[in-house]
């Protein structure tokens, strides 16, 4: 069932998915876990104030304010295909935002996105590789923070993306109960987080990247 949800809308939500299981075990039931360089297999996400977080993270840039819509690791040549977000401890007033990137492609145009060259904001392995907002394999990438346009033409396309996202209405999904698991096609959908008040500091979500689903 969750596979058909992914195919139709780019994400799938499974409520109360084996809440007793460790996130890694639950993820293995969903698909093949991707080992992502520099990250542990399971990452814990909690709302943090600006001053509490590392500066090269979303919390370090936005604190408890809402996180803008993005795809994970958009500055990588090939970002992880799927993101699984699993609730360990929910917060009723904090939502995960999801937007199907097909709407963005339809609005801005696949040709424009394919032609738009972007670069990581900082060098990686002594260089700044050139990437496309839409790769030939239909890998959509977007991040207003970690990638920058690499040409005037790309700057123009990026501006159109920003305008589109400003008006976009993402779905708001609350991961409230332990085991609530949201699987997002990271090559298709953008996601973000609503703002989190100080009392939402106990929210705890575990993230696992997957390269293939079962």
């Amino acid at each position, binding site marked *: 069932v969750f596979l058909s949800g992914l195919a139709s809308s780019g994400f799938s939500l499974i409520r109360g998915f084996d809440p007793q299981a460790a996130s890694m075990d639950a993820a293995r039931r969903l698909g093949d876990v991707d080992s992502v360089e520099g990250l542990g297999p399971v990452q814990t996400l909690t709302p943090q104030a600006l001053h509490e977080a590392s500066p090269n993270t979303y919390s370090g840039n936005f604190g408890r304010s809402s996180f803008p819509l993005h795809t994970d690791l958009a500055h990588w*040549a*090939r970002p992880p*295909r799927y993101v699984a977000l699993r609730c360990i401890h929910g917060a009723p007033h904090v939502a995960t935002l999801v937007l199907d990137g097909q709407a963005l492609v339809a609005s801005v145009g696949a*040709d424009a996105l394919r032609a738009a060259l972007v670069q990581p904001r900082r060098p990686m*392995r002594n260089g700044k590789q050139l990437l496309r907002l839409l790769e030939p394999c239909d890998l959509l990438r977007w991040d207003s923070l970690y990638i920058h346009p690499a040409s005037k*033409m790309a700057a123009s396309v990026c501006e159109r993306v920003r305008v589109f996202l400003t008006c976009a209405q993402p779905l708001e999904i609350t991961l409230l109960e332990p085991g609530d698991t949201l699987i997002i096609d990271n090559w298709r959908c953008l996601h973000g987080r609503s703002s989190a008040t100080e009392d939402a500091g106990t929210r705890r979500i575990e993230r696992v990247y997957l*390269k293939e689903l079962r």
Partner: protein
Amino acid sequence: MTTKETTTAKKVNHPWSADALLAKAQRYAEDMLSHSPEDWQFGLVSTFVLEFLARAALANISPTLLADPNNSNNFYFALGRTSTAPKFIPRSIDVTMVLTRLREVIPDEFTPEQHGFAAQHFSRRNEELHTGSTLDSTPTAYQQIANPINSEGFTTNAEVNLKTSPPSMTLYKGFFGQTFLLSQSQIVLHEAVHLVTYFGDRELATAATGKVYANTTRDNSEASEDWHNQLKKNCH
């Protein structure tokens, strides 16, 4: 949308990969288009576009074809490995060898005429970069072939979009779609050579087609027409 590949996350592309080289060609092409086709800068930057396209076509077969054979560590690097040799700096073959290898690996697609044309164009670049003479002061330089925008039967994606003013990157809608590169690297090369005929001259035209165009002028480009006909024949 097409079926997506399932694959492992990867931090960076190999610098000799077809994707990386093609993207770089595109960026140079954008820079090229920021100049007027009448300017020498347009011609100079076009040689960079052509070089990266040629390298991308070779890399699309295998990045190892770009490795300088004088040091086996270059092959190791091309295979995506990290050499343990101290102070090793990866070195790829020069553009002359790139053209030679293209002739060897795709002889039907990369014809002797195209080879000659591209070699001539790179020769012009060397003259610009290594001597005191300048492209814009050479009597037979870029301006002398008629602007192909004015040619009838100018039917490729590149041609149609060149007619817009100012030219835009949609010029490369097909050119940089990568579908070509994945399936038919020869078309990339065709398009590349086509692109540089845009500002070629009689000598360049002769190198491309093997014919002499004594009567070619800015408003009457027999060479350009020949090239387009050849393109159409090869692309269909």
